[in-house]
């Protein structure tokens, strides 16, 4: 039990009494609903209040990861598995146009960035500091992905702070132009609609004016954020939990949740980004408002589409580390309550879950191109919301540093990357596919992720058994092939032996 992810409990517990029999309904962050019937009113109330107290802790440092003692031997410390320097190594052989910058070492330039970021070589730290003042949250454009095939890049940032009077920043223009090859043009993908982007100017934000960025073409691809996503999740989970719905009601609830619309939007934007890189041979800069939510969805999914490595287990872990944790997706704020919250949480939003769902959609369309299986994605979802590991605590690297997570808690990767655990998450069908994989984004091709949303509402016994059977067939195949090879070798040996005996 200890090594299992324990389902996080929401603050919302329903306690009811019939006579002296008390019933506690516990709604978990993984959408499970548990009902406990407890005889004795007092006992029931005690249990309820204990659960209540334990599931709503004031301080992060009182949370499970700080008390968790692993029952396994740590072979490889996950905190050091994916260091930015190592990740940079992967590019540096292919290009010399980029460098690592330590300008944010003290988190002074941008509080939500990691200490080490990758920037164009020709831009010095001083310029970066200036650019940071021109970008939302200090999030100056940094390298997100380098496409080795043609040298094109994905960069991400916060929105430019142009404001109503059209402020500009020469360093910013210089920085992003530095990423373009001579005569080439690039695309800026704004994850807000033009309207929203224009409105942002009133609050000091804004978007890149064509006049100031003549080599860049701006594309608006609207992706929803915050409470709209959260409401969508709440509606969807509600619809999935009600088994009495007739067909029409179910379909209309599913539609009204808009969940799959969001999936389609996000995937479409990611495909667009990937297409710019791979088909158009153009570099791109992606941002929304802060550059911590929809921006990351798009950059990370585009990498899944473009980069075979990110479809391996290690590569995907590195992607999450790089594009979500280091990039400053505020997990603490976004994944606090999950679908059953009775109070409106301003910052709550299933941004990461949507990303995982999108990955699942691509996985479904290319079931042999991923080293991991659905369980891996489900596991990540569970740990993002509630975990005994420190990986997803805090909102950014700076907070994680202050909490001393590396010293005080265990990394999720230390546990996952043990061979015994990995086997559960490995896709038996995996065969490395070095191509770019283009998913279909037609509604007919985007089903509901049953493994997450219907997980507790129906038996998956027969499906699991079928999966087992499939694994067995594959294992048996491997076994037979190995045996044939051994026998063949034996035969060959016998033949040469005979030949030797014969020759003298």
């Amino acid at each position, binding site marked *: 039990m200890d090594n299992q992810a324990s389902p996080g409990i929401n603050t919302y517990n329903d306690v009811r009494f019939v006579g002296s029999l008390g019933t506690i309904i516990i709604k978990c962050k993984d959408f499970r609903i548990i009902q406990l019937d407890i005889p004795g009113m007092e006992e029931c109330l005690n249990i309820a209040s204990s659960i209540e107290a334990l599931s709503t802790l004031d301080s992060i440092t009182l949370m499970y990861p700080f008390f968790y003692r692993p029952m396994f031997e740590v072979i490889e410390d996950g905190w050091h598995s994916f260091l930015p320097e190592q990740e940079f190594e992967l590019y540096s052989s292919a290009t010399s146009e980029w460098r690592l910058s330590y300008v944010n070492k003290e988190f002074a330039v941008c509080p939500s960035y990691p200490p080490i970021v990758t920037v164009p070589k020709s831009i010095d730290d001083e310029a970066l500091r200036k650019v940071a003042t021109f970008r939302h949250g200090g999030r100056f454009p940094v390298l997100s992905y380098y496409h080795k095939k043609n040298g094109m890049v994905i960069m991400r940032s916060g929105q430019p702070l142009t404001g109503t009077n059209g402020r500009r920043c020469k360093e910013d223009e210089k920085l992003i132009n530095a990423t373009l090859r001579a005569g080439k043009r690039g695309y800026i993908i704004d994850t807000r609609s033009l309207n929203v982007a224009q409105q942002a100017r009133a609050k000091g934000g804004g978007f890149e004016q064509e006049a100031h960025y003549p080599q860049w073409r701006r594309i608006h691809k609207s992706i929803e954020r915050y409470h709209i996503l959260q409401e969508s999740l709440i509606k969807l989970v509600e619809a999935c939990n009600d088994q009495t719905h007739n067909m029409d009601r179910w379909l209309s609830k599913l539609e009204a949740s808009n969940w799959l619309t969001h999936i389609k939007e996000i995937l479409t934007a990611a495909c667009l980004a990937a297409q710019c890189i791979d088909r158009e041979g153009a570099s791109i800069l992606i941002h929304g408002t802060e550059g911590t939510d929809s921006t990351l969805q798009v950059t990370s999914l585009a990498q899944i589409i473009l980069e075979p490595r990110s479809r391996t287990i290690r590569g995907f872990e590195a992607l999450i580390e790089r594009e979500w944790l280091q990039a400053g997706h505020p997990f603490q704020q976004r994944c606090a309550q999950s679908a059953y919250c009775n109070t409106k949480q301003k910052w709550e939003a299933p941004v990461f879950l949507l990303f995982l769902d999108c990955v699942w959609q691509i996985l479904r*369309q290319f079931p042999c191109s991923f080293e991991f299986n659905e369980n891996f994605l489900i596991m990540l979802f569970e740990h993002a919301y509630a975990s005994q590991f420190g990986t997803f605590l805090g909102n950014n690297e700076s907070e994680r540093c202050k909490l001393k997570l590396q010293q005080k808690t265990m990394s999720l990767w230390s546990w996952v990357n043990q061979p015994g655990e990995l086997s559960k998450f490995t896709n038996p069908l995996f065969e490395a596919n070095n191509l770019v994989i283009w998913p279909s984004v037609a509604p007919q091709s985007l089903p509901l992720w049953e493994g997450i949303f219907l997980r507790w509402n129906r038996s998956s016994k027969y499906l699991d058994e079928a999966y087992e059977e499939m694994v067995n067939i594959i294992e048996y195949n491997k076994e037979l092939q190995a045996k044939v090879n051994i026998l063949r070798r034996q035969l060959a040996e016998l033949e040469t032996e005979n030949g030797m005996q014969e020759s003298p």
Partner: protein
Amino acid sequence: MQPSDDVSPTPEPQASWTPLLRARRAALKWAQKSVPGVRGVAGCGPSAQKWPGPRDFLACGQVHKRRPRILMREGGTWGRARAAAPEARYRAVGRADTPRAAGTVKWEVRKRTGTCTREGEMWRGTHISRVEQVKLLDRFSTSNKSLTGTLYLTATHLLFIDSHQKETWILHHHIASVEKLALTTSGCPLVIQCKNFRTVHFIVPRERDCHDIYNSLLQLSKQAKYEDLYAFSYNPKQNDSERLQGWQLIDLAEEYKRMGVPNSHWQLSDANRDYKICETYPRELYVPRIASKPIIVGSSKFRSKGRFPVLSYYHQDKEAAICRCSQPLSGFSARCLEDEHLLQAISKANPVNRYMYVMDTRPKLNAMANRAAGKGYENEDNYSNIRFQFVGIENIHVMRSSLQKLLEVNGTKGLSVNDFYSGLESSGWLRHIKAVMDAAIFLAKAITVENASVLVHCSDGWDRTSQVCSLGSLLLDSYYRTIKGFMVLIEKDWISFGHKFSERCGHLDGDPKEVSPVFTQFLECVWHLTEQFPQAFEFSEAFLLQIHEHIHSCQFGNFLGNCQKEREELKLKEKTYSLWPFLLEDQKKYLNPLYSSKSHRFTVLEPNTISFNFKFWRNMYHQFDRTLHPRQSVFNIIMNMNEQNEQLEKDIKDLESKIKQRKNKQTDGILTKELLHSVHPESPTLKTSLCFKEQTLLPVNDALRTIEGSSLADNRYSEYAEEFSKSEPAVVSLEYGVARMTC
């Protein structure tokens, strides 16, 4: 304009057919590369080395590929030699001609046009055979992506060969509708919708050509007489005894014996031996032993179309029966003692449980409305020991328009998620599927839980009744979940009991109000079951899709006609072939690799019918829209692996015996040069296994990874490599920096 008298074949090569030859060669080259046994790539289509036998047609998932007779006119002149081109290409590969077919084609079409009597005249103005520079639009692309190619009209198919020499074959019988849209700058758009849910959108450069094609297709796709259907000219090169054997493959008497009938409660009745009591029932009917002939006759007079209660399925363990009939002619108060007796006889035939269920599969309102027309439903007061139940499946008209709405929605370009789901909802399609499924579950439960016999009817007892009886039997009896068993089930509950296939599928030019996707719904219910119970079925989705293809293809005799009597009159067994032996011969392709026959857990299936279990069947309704499907098929890989495993097991045995042999020889110590020499060149295991390895690895790695799940039709396998590396449709297209979305 000089009309040519005929399109008789001349073998000498002509300039005009070089593209066809090239296509052939390309396809041949490819076919040689590909591995036999892998989803029927070899021997596929007209490009195969040998004359394509029926096996090959099935192998490509194509209903056709009978030698196409291409009838051509170019520039207003009927070029004799040009017309012969396709013939010539078959000649070139040493194929025998079939004179009968040639004659038939000429004659048939003449009859169809019906305007001219003199040979040669007939084509003028009505039938074109070849149009060049035709564009085939991508159905879902909003950027008007298209392929340019040549459109041919053959006696049986419409053929489009694009510039990549990819062939798209459309059987005339599959064409459900042809629509000419308003002229555009690039030409005249022609939209063809097929009964197998293929939709093609052509743009023909000249309006006159388009009009001609339109008229030709209208005529060719709608036949007035059975004799003009494909099945009557289809010749898979079998002799008469083979054909007859094919027809005898499914023996219903044998099937009733398997169920344990006749027995002490049930017997074969000869009442309908000459179709005297009921024209739409089969000759052989099983009824309760205690039901005398007068009772049967009396009851049949009280039932719509004379379809009195008879046995459909007998559950041996429970000794309970599924019976079927049509609605009683009860009106508001009429009753019939014989009918009441017959129902009582049915409940008495069940020794365990004295009461029986009567399931009226219609909505209550419809059943009540029928009373005004002198029909209606059983009055519980008049029948002893019955429990009456409505299950509310809508009628054929509701189903037809529901499917129509569904197809409208999912054919929309740039469909949004919300429009898709609200369309799915308003079409009601999944609601209807659920209703059929729920009814079947009710039936199965009555038998397994209550041990009660059930009598099922709707109005005439050949649509909803067939759905519910067959699906109920499928839930109860694992035999029907095997390939052979499923054929038996269709033969029993659908074909023999007179589901009006020809009317429901619109085989002939008839009343469009009689067309309805009743059988398609049945297949969809089965598909839903295979989704919930992935290991319970011997066959895979491909089998269902193939059967669906053939209920409309009119290539085989099984589904022609509306009842057994009509089929006998058409002499189908003498003039046409049965589909089943061809499917059975090819069963490898339809096997479910995960099927576990041994486990008895699956004797009775208890599906979950909470709404969220019902999903849109993409592989059926978008069969031909390959861009919508997963690019890699787990199913195919596993299937291949299973096959490979068998081969490997054999290899291991061979190798082991070889090694044993060697060791023996070694210990004997007698090794002569001759022996060695005789062994060396022989060692076949090594050789075979080596090339085997190369072969099997190829499909696993490339072919199967790249094709989508359900590619049953046409020879699209040929371009897998190229398609995959091109990685498919620009999900998004960028033009002048403006992003435009396509899906």
